[in-house]
């Protein structure tokens, strides 16, 4: 039975050798030599140190293209023209499915034709040397961003290749991304990824780990996201990770977003062991964007404003071309500059908003309910507790495609645009908290003169791309 226990050294070595034979570039990984390479990197490329010592939110976009030269050029552009503090390397979808042969074909086609035949950078195929050429060429810390349920080989190669930050986790890269990978399987795979990061950490190379906070990106109630962030942080800490960045995706209500980021920071520090340095990352709106660059810039600016007030350690920016899919490098850089402009104008102002403390208190109480139920389900073990709580529905994520989660909980906005829970299903929450949500949703129903129903959920999902926060009925209210 899989539990929240550290992988023993001999087991780490056995799995490492096994997964490195999955693709030919795995043979080039040499742990001792990799430690030397990391030690040779200048301070300004040390991800954890740069992030943890920053005095205002650092900005990072998303970006990945198949060819190494193009990835270097794109990274430099975003660093220089977009003033990105931290550089991403987004991995392609074939690699996320462990389809290295297909990624190889795509990469070769990209090299022949010059087209972007893959939707990201196939780091496994580029191998340790390819990764290091990228790390050497770009004068900033670089993170691997992906969405891979089984990221063991990707981690082995990118860590040896000089990357010092790795996004994802067993819940956050399973529940929103895939239907069939079992949660137990992904937890086991990610224990290895975290153990490997822990092994580097023990040698003085702190690999930063970043659970993916937005989850399904669609009206996720803050407490559900925060509970999952804490669980993934705990799992990583058990394996020896010491730099953990917990994430949260903007819902668009400024009070709730600031309260959630405050709660994330506070509870992350409280629940994770003292030896872990906890930082936070705020993702600009992950739901549907307006099909209009000017309006999209408005959404991005509200994210910047929220970040200026809550001051997370990092902000993942969006581009005004979000509606169309992968943005041009110019649009990507413009999303960065828009965010920076708003943050820099707002961050030195003292902005007091009523209601943040009260909302934060509610989010904390909800998160504690969920953490308690996980603890109880697992009889003290967070791995078993997570598996059993998802199984019973006591823990759930709205709009989860995975078979490992019920996906029965449904959110809706209240009359103030804060995300509440409309359908609780079996989510384990105190009755008095449920009453608060019920009352807030009932207030909205009164305002709109209609009954609470899934119709509100559907309207809310489309609201921001339609130009509003709350999905009110069409016409006057």
């Amino acid at each position, binding site marked *: 039975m899989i539990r929240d226990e550290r992988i023993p050294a001999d087991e780490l070595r056995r799995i490492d050798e096994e997964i490195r034979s999955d693709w030919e570039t795995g043979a080039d990984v040499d742990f001792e030599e990799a430690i030397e390479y990391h030690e040779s990197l200048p301070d300004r490329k040390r991800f954890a140190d740069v992030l943890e010592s920053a005095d205002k939110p650092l900005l990072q976009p998303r970006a990945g293209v198949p060819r190494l030269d193009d990835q270097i050029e794109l990274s430099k552009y975003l660093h220089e023209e977009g003033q990105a503090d931290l550089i991403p390397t987004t991995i392609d979808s074939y690699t996320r499915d462990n389809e290295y042969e297909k990624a190889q074909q795509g990469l070769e086609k990209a090299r022949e034709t010059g087209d972007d035949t893959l939707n990201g950078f196939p780091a496994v195929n580029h191998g340790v040397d390819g990764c290091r050429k990228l790390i050497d060429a770009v004068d900033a810390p670089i993170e691997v961003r992906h969405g891979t349920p089984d990221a063991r080989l990707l981690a082995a190669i990118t860590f040896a290749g000089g990357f010092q930050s790795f996004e994802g986790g067993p819940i956050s890269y399973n529940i929103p991304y895939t239907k069939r990978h079992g949660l137990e399987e992904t937890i086991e795979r990610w224990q290895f990824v975290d153990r490997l990061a822990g092994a580097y950490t023990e040698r003085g190379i702190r690999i930063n780990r970043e659970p993916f906070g937005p989850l*399904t990106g669609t009206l996720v109630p803050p407490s559900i996201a925060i509970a999952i962030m804490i669980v993934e942080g705990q799992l990583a800490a058990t394996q020896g990770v010491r730099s953990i960045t917990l994430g949260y995706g903007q819902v668009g209500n400024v009070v709730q977003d600031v309260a959630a980021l405050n709660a994330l920071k506070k509870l992350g520090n409280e629940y994770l062991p003292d030896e872990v340095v906890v930082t936070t990352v705020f993702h600009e709106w992950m739901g549907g964007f307006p099909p209009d660059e000017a309006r999209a810039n408005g959404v991005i600016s509200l994210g910047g404003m929220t970040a200026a007030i809550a001051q997370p350690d990092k902000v993942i920016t969006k581009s005004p071309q979000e509606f169309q899919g992968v943005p041009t490098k110019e649009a990507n850089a413009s999303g960065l500059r828009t965010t920076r402009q708003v943050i820099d104008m707002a961050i030195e102002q003292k902005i007091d908003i009523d209601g943040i403390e009260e909302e934060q208190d509610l989010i904390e109480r909800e998160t504690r309910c969920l953490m308690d139920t996980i603890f109880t389900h697992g009889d003290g073990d967070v791995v078993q507790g997570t598996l059993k709580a998802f199984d019973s529905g006591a823990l759930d994520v709205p709009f989860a*495609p995975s078979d490992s989660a019920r*996906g029965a909980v449904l959110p809706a906005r209240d009359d103030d645009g804060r995300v509440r829970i409309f359908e609780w299903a079996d989510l384990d929450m105190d009755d008095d908290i449920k009453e608060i949500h019920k009352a807030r949703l009932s207030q909205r129903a009164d305002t709109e003169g209609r009954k609470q129903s*899934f119709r509100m959920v*559907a309207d809310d999902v489309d609201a921001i791309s339609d130009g509003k926060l709350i999905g009110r009925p069409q016409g006057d209210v």
Partner: protein
Amino acid sequence: MSQTVVLGVIGSDAHVVGITILEQAFSAAGFDVVNLGVQTSQEEFAEEAVDHDAEAVLVSSLYGHAEQDCQGFHEVLAESDVDAVTYIGGNLAVGQDEFDQTRRTFRELGFDRVFDSETDPEDAIEALREDLQITPTESERATISS
């Protein structure tokens, strides 16, 4: 007697929001809903339609590969002796095709009705009631007209 509707997202698509809303809407309208979720194969649609003796099979697709994913779908259904109304809805084509053209394409593939991504769930429910010749109950009629 309540009627059974099998619902799913076809192919490798993982977009779950629309189908979740449809599940709620059809359940609220009195249908028995079997939601197969995302990344559902043609064969799974056929098996579940047979197992549940479904009156309707509703296919959702949002990532633009629907035409490829639906090739031969109605032959698969016919092989399993599925005799159900079939609908498809979502973002059915990559790019800027006129929807009339898209509708024609999917009608030719065998779908009884084709909906774009802007369709309200209520419109699909109304269409299905019409196709299955179901009369709304008095109370539901009142809700609809209010």
